[in-house]
């Protein structure tokens, strides 16, 4: 009896030693920082909807311990503790959840409020960027490494890539309609449009569109410029009421897209959140553009 007990203890000690000797994870994030995780992350705080959706898409919704107030998808995260929202992010609230990984995107002051404090508290922070759709897919793999779910991540990324290839195969590369995607309106009458050098612009391109407006220095453009560009298809990411209001202002009724009923509403969460739903958006849009081409 003592001998079996002794062997069990020895075995347990060896296993622990083996686990202890396992090398820590080293992950390189979008800013080139090398982030060191002692073990795959179990308590994750993803900041911003995009990061939350990516983590949840990997089946890790139960490992999420804190979200920010604007995140509404997926439904599993709705009851989670809030660590920030309209007025910024609370370091206290984050720390209270004892996370072992914080995922953040450089937007809305998140970096300034979080990087410094987290590094002093030795909580690893991964910074993700989504400058292109390819980078979004890369983020899936990155998160897989950080959470020890490489296999699932590879499968998910692979599925996204496959969907993109199917979309590409469907439309002919020569006929690409000129498209403007309006993402918002400013208080002074300017409109915000999707720029070609962002993942939104990239998504439009992958869906088979061509930008009607050339590269802009600032994201806000005069409505006159959009109207003068006269795109084949006009897209609006927002509510139907806001779209109708925009189209009622002077000049918009001149657009051929408006006159030929080729002005469509697209989902903000599909085009403005760089996460898994972006691919739904690309597929839907490519079907829409194909149908528009028929007319």
């Amino acid at each position: 009896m003592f001998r079996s007990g002794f062997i069990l203890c020895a075995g347990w000690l060896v296993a622990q030693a083996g686990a202890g000797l396992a090398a820590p994870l080293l992950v390189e994030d979008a800013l080139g920082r090398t982030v060191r995780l002692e073990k795959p992350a179990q308590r994750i705080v993803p900041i911003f909807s995009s990061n939350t959706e990516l983590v949840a898409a990997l089946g890790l919704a139960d490992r999420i311990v804190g979200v920010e107030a604007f995140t509404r998808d997926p439904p599993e995260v709705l009851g989670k503790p809030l660590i920030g929202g309209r007025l910024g992010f609370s370091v206290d609230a984050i720390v209270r959840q004892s996370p072992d990984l914080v995922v953040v995107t450089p937007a809305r002051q998140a970096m300034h409020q979080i990087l410094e404090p987290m590094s002093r508290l030795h909580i690893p922070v991964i910074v993700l960027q989504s400058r292109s759709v390819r980078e979004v897919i890369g983020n899936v793999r990155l998160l897989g490494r950080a959470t020890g779910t490489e296999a699932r991540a590879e499968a998910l990324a692979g599925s996204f890539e496959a969907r993109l290839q199917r979309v590409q195969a469907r439309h002919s590369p020569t006929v690409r309609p000129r498209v403007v995607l309006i993402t918002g309106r400013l208080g002074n009458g300017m409109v915000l449009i999707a720029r070609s050098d962002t993942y939104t612009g990239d998504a439009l391109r992958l869906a088979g569109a061509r930008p009607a407006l050339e590269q802009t220095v600032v994201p806000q453009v005069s409505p006159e410029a959009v109207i003068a560009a006269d795109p084949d298809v006009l897209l609006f990411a927002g509510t139907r009421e806001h779209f109708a209001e925009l189209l009622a202002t002077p000049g918009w009724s001149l657009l051929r897209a408006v006159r030929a009923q080729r002005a469509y509403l697209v989902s903000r969460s599909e085009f403005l959140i760089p996460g898994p739903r972006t691919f739904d958006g690309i597929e839907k849009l490519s079907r829409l553009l194909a149908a528009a081409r028929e007319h």
Partner: protein
Amino acid sequence: MGRSRLLLGAALLGSLGFAASAGHDWATPAAVFRSLAGDDSLQSQLLITWRYPRILAAALVGALLGLGGAIFQGVFRNPLAEPYLLGSSGGAAVGATIALLVPMGLPSQWLLAGLSFLGAWGATWLVLLVGGWRRGADAAHLLLAGVAIAAMLGAVRSFMMLALSDDTMNLQAVLSWTLGGIQTPGWWGVLLLGGLTALALAAVMTLAHGLDLLGLGDEQAHAFGLQPERFVRWAVLVASAVVAVAVAWGGLVAFVGLIAPHVARWRCGPRHRRLLPESAAIGAILVVLCDGLARSVLPPAEIPLGLITAVFGGPFFLFVLARRRRP
């Protein structure tokens, strides 16, 4: 004197012509003529539905700012007085913030114009109440009350922006309004603005004699038949209403209400019967030119109008300083 008026009229027409061509896409004079002749192309239609109402609105907004500024300078007897002295900018910003951030069922462009007008004019009423309503208005009291109210309104606006903005309507959307800029109205909007401007001009001309008398000093004005404190109260209300209309259509445009009356006084002297219309004309020219620049300097974006006028405001004051220094 007639020649000077002719020159001013020509300058106004010239600036309108410049502005009709200016934009992210410069339209040649030929294109402008074609559009007026009934051409059907997209460019011509765009000029007619978008650019012409825009430049007319710019001229009218500039005229209103010139009138308001001239009255404020007359009331405060100071060539450095400007139309936002009594809190109208703070009030307008609060109104605009509410219109932009609080979801209401009404169409947004009328809401924005309406609430910024109410905010601008309402702030002045508040200043008049605080600065002394019963006995009439003393200019110094009004200024102090104006500073206090403006500060409080600024705090209210900042708080509202923080509390009400969300991911669809962020701070930038609201801040962009405060930098000033004319939102292209439809032709009905231009007509309404034109009517209001004509009304404003008529109302303002009735103040001309009183403003002349105010310049003689309170006692002498009294001796010449004016009741200074009652007149100041009325003049401030009229001027603020005029400025509030300008703000409703053009946002917070800095310096025009200060420079236009200043330049007009150089040209035609201090009598307000001539000063007021000249100030309106010069204000119109300034805003039309600056708006044209705003639309054409960084295509396809627009630089906020308030920034352009501020860029010219600074050198203007250096110029005034240089003039004063000359013996």
